[in-house]
């Protein structure tokens, strides 16, 4: 079996007549925690959707194992008659017709997924009445219930406060370590991920580069990726990624605030 959980080569995706991703390639080792980073519209969601087979794409995508997916925030109304544990159970066989016979194996899988995200305490509550952080845990449990090898998460930290985001990141890192799940998580704010990221997949201008943070978040690397000069500036142990300088109209636009762990 390959040592990689995900292999992508020469991947190109066009949407609405625009080529969003062009000839990108990377591989993710099993059990790695990878941050998919890029500004809004860079193609992060497009890449995740292409890996899931939801978008037509050219090139090669090889997923070695089962994939779990956590989409961007789902609108869940407070009065929706669905409990957290019902939602997780839909991850097992929610796409199938017929009567789901209650069985010990089924209940054990749901219980294990809820336990893995520390959601047993609110498993019987309506999913629409949970906090943002609790809902995110339930979404992760929904993805985990079939024991995936690769977990794709689309902006899971976007609507969370700093504390809840840190808790979700710690939870995902623990899943990575204990279950050997490979995590590919998209985000535009890298700070909560820096202590846990093994690799970073940086997407800009339709291209992507993958490596460790020290390998990727560098002036020459990001300048080549963006196609114009990018400054990577260290400030108090943090890094500012700034577009500007020569040939860029002397404007300094903040691209990312990040920090070397």
């Amino acid at each position, binding site marked *: 079996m390959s040592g990689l959980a995900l292999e992508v080569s020469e991947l190109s995706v066009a949407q609405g007549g625009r080529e969003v991703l062009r000839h990108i390639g990377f591989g993710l080792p099993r059990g790695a925690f990878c941050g998919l980073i890029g500004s809004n519209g860079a193609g992060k969601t497009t890449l995740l959707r292409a890996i899931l087979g939801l978008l037509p794409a050219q090139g090669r995508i090889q997923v070695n194992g089962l994939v779990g997916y956590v989409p961007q925030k789902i609108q869940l109304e407070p009065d929706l008659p669905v409990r957290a544990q019902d939602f997780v159970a839909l991850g097992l066989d929610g796409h199938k*017709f017929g009567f789901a016979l209650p069985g010990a194996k089924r209940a054990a899988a749901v219980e294990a997924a809820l336990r893995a995200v520390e959601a047993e305490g609110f498993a*019987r509550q309506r999913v629409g009445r949970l906090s943002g952080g609790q809902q995110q845990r339930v979404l992760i449990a929904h993805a985990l219930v079939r024991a995936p090898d690769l977990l794709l998460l689309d902006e899971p930290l976007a609507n969370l406060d700093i504390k809840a985001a840190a808790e979700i990141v710690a939870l995902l890192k623990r899943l990575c370590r204990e279950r050997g799940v490979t995590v590919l998580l998209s985000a535009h704010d890298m700070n909560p991920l820096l202590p846990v990221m093994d690799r970073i997949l940086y997407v800009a201008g339709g291209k992507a580069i993958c490596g460790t943070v020290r390998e990727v978040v560098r002036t020459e690397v990001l300048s080549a990726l963006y196609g114009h000069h990018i400054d990577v500036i260290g400030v108090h142990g943090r890094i500012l990624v700034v577009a500007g300088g020569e040939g860029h109209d002397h404007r300094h636009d903040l691209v990312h605030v990040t920090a070397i762990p």
Partner: protein
Amino acid sequence: MSYLVEIWMAASLVALAAGAAGAFVVIRRAGFAAHALPMAAFPGAAAAALFGFPLWVGLGGFALGGAGLLALMQRRARRDSATALLLSVLLAVGALCLSLSGHYAGSVYGLLFGQVFALGGQDLPVLCVIGLCVPAMLWLGLRPLSLSALSPELMRVQGGRPDVMEFLFLALLALAAGFAVPVTGALLVFSLMLGPGAAAALLCARPGGAMALAMLFAVALAWAALALAYVSNWPVGFFTGVGAAGLYLLARLKPV
């Protein structure tokens, strides 16, 4: 079988289907579609009168046609815009058919507000099929209908077809609503679905339980409306509409 028992059975069967569909109207946030699709019965019944084919054929044919059209239109336009457009077209076609059939004034009242006491034993077999098959189909589709409502994207990732589920839901909703029209009328069938469905969703936190409770509420509502209409000589539709709102308000009193 006595006339009143036949009416009672017809209303119960219609309520079973409407209650089951109503639970999913709440889960799938399809209240506007639940208002628009019964209007397919309006041209359906009018076309049956105009061309001389059985009423149930007109109701069923137009209900399924309306559901198919709505499912197609929703792929191309915003959901509410597509529903509003369908509603306009159905009302326009219905008005034309009724006008051409020559029974305009009397038929309009019956189609919009219902004439349950005009039903008879000959209507029971077809109502029996609808009243049992619609809830059975919805029960079998409980999981995919729920998942595709919560997240069509997750449904696709798991290998399901949310577009197929949307059509199936609209078709079952249209059948439940279309065949309830003779009982409650096109305007008030909405209340027989929404009131019990919304009240059940407040009282039960599980999709299957909410569906069963909505069916129970809808049958109780239909029985109460029939009894009150019989003793007061007021329209059944009035009691159905007011009762549905009352049911929801009572359910709201439950502490969160």
